[in-house]
């Protein structure tokens, strides 16, 4: 703090953050603006739940119903039974679990290799891996599809799970690599002197210290896999094997008569619940991790 005699000046200088402590009025206005914006951001969530609980009549009469007079919880049941959604949910869970475990395990191994092991052309390989970030999914999609076809994997879940086991994606490797670089090497060297193998160091030193990063990778992979429709619509044609997301995409066309879009909304709500719950459980790690990944660049 600079020592200034004049009291008025001192007051301005001692402000902790640049725009932080303007007058009470300023803060009040900003708070109000934030509230309005928050309401606008939350409105779609309100609307999806509200319309999921309306009757068909409420949906199709004017003026629009903002809140259903009586919440139609039955809508969820009707929507759920219109298509075999229980099966689709199980299918999706299988794929999400398989690809998430694969992505976390293999991305961690690859990142460990890039961060700690010395091998020929390590840096070059690392950059090559990173550059695949720019590859559009639609470019690799066609040759990958043809390979999967040759393997006889069409209409199976292998194309949706197995690729995750090969490195788990460049972004994940990059993220874990950055975190591993932050771990002090001394610990590992001590362990090496004590005769610990690379595998043991990986599991007992590296993995415990990058748990938050692993959570981010797991979350990102699970989220992508849960919401993916490009993969399923290319590979899965058998209606019994559809994923949840894929079924939602065709759902508007299979609406039972006498029902309006409240069923679509109800299914979309169900589809979002695991995502929102998961987010709140992992929130602290996720927000910090995402910020760290952005700043580390």
């Amino acid at each position, binding site marked *: 703090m600079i020592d200034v005699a004049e009291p008025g000046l001192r007051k301005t200088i001692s402000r902790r953050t640049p725009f*932080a402590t303007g007058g009470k009025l300023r803060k009040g206005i900003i708070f109000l603006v934030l509230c309005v*914006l928050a309401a606008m951001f939350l409105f779609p969530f309100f609307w999806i739940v509200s319309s999921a609980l309306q009757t068909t009549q409420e949906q199709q009469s004017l003026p629009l119903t903002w809140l259903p007079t009586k919440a139609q919880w039955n809508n969820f049941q009707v929507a759920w039974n219109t298509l075999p959604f229980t099966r689709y949910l199980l299918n999706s869970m299988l794929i999400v679990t398989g690809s998430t475990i694969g992505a976390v395990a293999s991305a961690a191994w690859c990142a460990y290799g890039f961060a700690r092991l010395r091998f020929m052309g390590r840096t070059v390989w690392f950059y090559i891996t990173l550059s695949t*970030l720019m590859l*559009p999914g639609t*470019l690799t999609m*066609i040759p990958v599809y043809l390979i999967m076809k040759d393997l006889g994997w069409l209409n199976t879940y292998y194309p949706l799970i197995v690729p995750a086991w090969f490195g788990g994606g460049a972004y994940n490797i990059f993220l874990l690599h950055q975190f591993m670089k932050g771990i002090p090497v001394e610990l590992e060297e001590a362990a090496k002197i004590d005769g610990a193998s690379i595998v043991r160091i990986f599991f007992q030193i590296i993995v415990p210290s990058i748990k938050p990063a692993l959570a981010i990778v797991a979350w990102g992979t699970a989220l992508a896999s849960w919401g993916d429709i490009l993969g399923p619509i290319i590979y899965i044609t058998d209606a019994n094997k559809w994923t949840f997301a894929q079924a*939602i995409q065709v759902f508007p066309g299979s609406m039972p008569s006498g029902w309006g879009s409240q069923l679509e909304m109800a299914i979309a709500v169900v589809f979002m619940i695991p995502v929102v719950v998961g*987010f709140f459980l992992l929130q602290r790690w996720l927000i910090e991790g*995402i910020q760290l990944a952005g700043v580390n*660049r």
Partner: protein
Amino acid sequence: MILSLYYSLTKYDMLSPPAFVGTQNYANLFQDPSFLNSIEVTLIYTVVSVPLGLICGLGLALLLNQKVPGMRIFRTIFYLPVIVPAIASSELWLDMFSPNQYGIVNTILMNLHIINQPYAFFTEPSTALISLIYMSLWGMGGGMLIWLAGLQSVPLELYEAAKVDGAGRARQFFRITLPLLTPTIFFNMVTGMIGTLQIFVQSLVLGGVDGNPLGALDFISLFIYRHAFSYFQMGFASAAGWVLFLFIMLLTILVFWSSRKWVYYEGDVQR
């Protein structure tokens, strides 16, 4: 990748083996008005929605950085839409943006007397893309988080020094905050561009496999998907994939190259 380059030079319908046709696919591509249209749509979307998302995300982050009560709660609220899977958010917005009085957004706007006629949103070629851009702003919380981290890493001493020198708020922002945020701008810009150039799910849900209305939502990714998996023109689609890839490469290199001129890294000062 190499395989796809090879396919892009062939005519391949998956029934008979690939037949080599040289650069015929590429020539056909650039004579196909629907491909040129998809390039245009994709470019417009990228050029408008990326800067718009950057500015709005930064604005949001600046507001959140003011030490007002409930900052964490606001941060969560603004971030929440980002995690909603594109398939769910597209269906939701399609419903909210219904083109008649049954759409909630039309109802609100008409009650506020902002518009007199229901707005067409996704059903009219001239408004579909604008609506999609508007919808994409709902997800600006992702960029906001990174802006926020960037803002918090700006050393406070700089502002105090500036204040002693009598610099006003606007001046502080343009002379201190913005230059120090350039790495964040760069990061958000590159990731945003790569994302928008590959937009797929939204266009499929909102516009179907043809990118309706009248190709207004026909993005390159959708074009590739349609030709590969509806028409089984694997070679032709591969060629389109390569054009998209070169596009992304070119734009990324351009941004990286120009970044030397405007991105400021603290470690670089001594050089």
